[in-house]
């Protein structure tokens, strides 16, 4: 049997602070195939640090430790920078929340996408340009030539995020980690970006880790959802079974959302049980 695309067992991320160590991630385990896995939690739950630890891009003040942390059978624990550089971008990559901050502001976006392709696929300039324009078209950008010449600040949020997806997908990675990829966008734009991501991931069979605070959105987009609280996974659910969630934290998260179709007054609030963080 081939190893899972991603195999994480007992992952810990610890920050050294003046007041002693703070554990942001405390023993997270999961395996990912060519599927879509959602990681949901509130601020400080450790969901982003989990994603960053996989790619090896945590803050230098943090230490990552795990029983297993393997991508396609390759041990990522203590992997040397060269191995990581060969994997990152080429075989696993990351889409972040705000394209305004993750794109280079002083380089036209076309050149940035082409550069990603040339570095990871060792292609020539001309081929990279052709592939970039194809990729921009694949993410439904209407005028790829114009966008090729555009700078990040000249793009709308939705357009910028589609450029990010193009850049992350051009090297045809096996794994994408998307950290709140649509949280900075308007609802309709967010749906457009998700439709593009859906299409790209489905077509290539890419494994996806979708990190978000939005439980309903993640459940509608992914196959499986991990719910994180205080650095731990408190519940794992098939996305379709979200309404059958059992953990009081998951139920609390679902219940405290205001709903369009009926009004509860007062809204149920979440009473946190210290035992959840145990």
């Amino acid at each position, binding site marked *: 049997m081939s190893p899972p695309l991603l195999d994480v067992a007992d992952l810990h991320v610890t920050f050294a602070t003046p007041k002693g160590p703070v554990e942001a991630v405390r023993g997270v385990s999961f395996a990912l195939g060519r599927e879509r896995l959602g990681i949901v939690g509130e601020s400080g739950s450790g969901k982003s640090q989990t994603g960053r630890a996989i790619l090896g891009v945590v803050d230098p003040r943090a230490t990552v430790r795990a029983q297993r942390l393997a991508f396609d059978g390759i041990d990522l624990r203590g992997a040397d920078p060269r191995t990581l550089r060969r994997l990152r971008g080429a075989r696993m990559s990351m889409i972040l929340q705000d394209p305004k901050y993750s794109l280079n502001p002083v380089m036209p976006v076309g050149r940035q996408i082409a550069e990603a392709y040339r570095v990871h696929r060792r292609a020539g300039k001309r081929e990279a340009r052709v592939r970039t324009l194809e990729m921009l078209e694949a993410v439904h950008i209407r005028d790829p030539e114009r966008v090729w010449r555009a700078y990040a600040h000249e793009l709308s949020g939705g357009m910028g995020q589609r450029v990010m997806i193009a850049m992350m997908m051009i090297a045809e990675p096996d794994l994408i980690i998307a950290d709140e990829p649509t949280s900075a966008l308007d*609802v309709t734009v967010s749906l457009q970006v*998700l439709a593009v991501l859906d299409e790209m991931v489905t077509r290539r069979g890419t494994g996806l880790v979708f990190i978000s605070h939005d439980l309903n959105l993640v459940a509608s987009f992914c196959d499986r959802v991990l719910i994180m609280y205080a650095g731990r996974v408190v519940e794992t659910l098939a996305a379709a079974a979200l309404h059958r969630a059992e953990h009081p934290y998951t139920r609390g998260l679902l219940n405290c959302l*205001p709903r369009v*179709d009926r*009004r509860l007054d007062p*809204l149920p609030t979440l009473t946190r049980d210290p035992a959840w963080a145990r």
Partner: protein
Amino acid sequence: MSAAAPMVELRDLHVRFGRGADGVHAVRGVELTVPAGAAYGLVGESGSGKSTVLRVIAGLIDRFEGRLAVAGEVPGRRRALAFHRAVQMVFQDPYGSLHPRHTVDRIIKEPLAIHRLPRDDARIARALDEVGLDRSFRFRFPHQLSGGQRQRVAIARALVVEPEVVLLDEPTSALDVSIQAEVLNLLTRLRRERDLTYLLVSHDLAVVGHICEEVAIMREGAIVETLAVERLRERTPTHPYTRQLLEAAAGYHPAVARPLVATA
């Protein structure tokens, strides 16, 4: 003030930023009527002009065309002190809207000083109690508080001068959902207790539906539809854009999302 006059009234409001080719016609003929004690919601996506409308009412934008009346009176270009006491605002970002080097005590006292109201301890303590903050928070700085606690301070600051109208600009969109629920409950309770009039701007239909009785949907500077919250709840809006927003709020469904890409 006449008893029959609505609390907030806007007629044919236009706001333009810049001039000539670079000019933006940000608000195009917005009309709204908010009775005293009502909660009115403005929903729209970025750039729809919803916050601009709020800023016109607050007096933060003074170049506009059209008629604004609050409690039946048309405020002058330079708003009177009494106007600012009657109309208070709560902003989206609890990290940006509190002075980082002022304690909670000083933050809440400032509007009292501006309006020459007594600043006794009891009043500050009461202001904290009302928004559900422990009195031990009084001498803390904003960085020592969580996002939800900061938003409670911002609400206390707005309410301490006993306004009649509270303008709420995305008051919960920077907060986690569990904290959002607490702040929404707080806003609902305070309105009931104090008979406040709310004007709430949000991109979130569910949040607006929870707080408000009437909702205006804005797009590209204009109101496309005004509807009672019951029609929102029954999902029977008349305008296709409102329907689109309702569908988009229900999560990701390929059948809804894919056609949107084609039109992007």
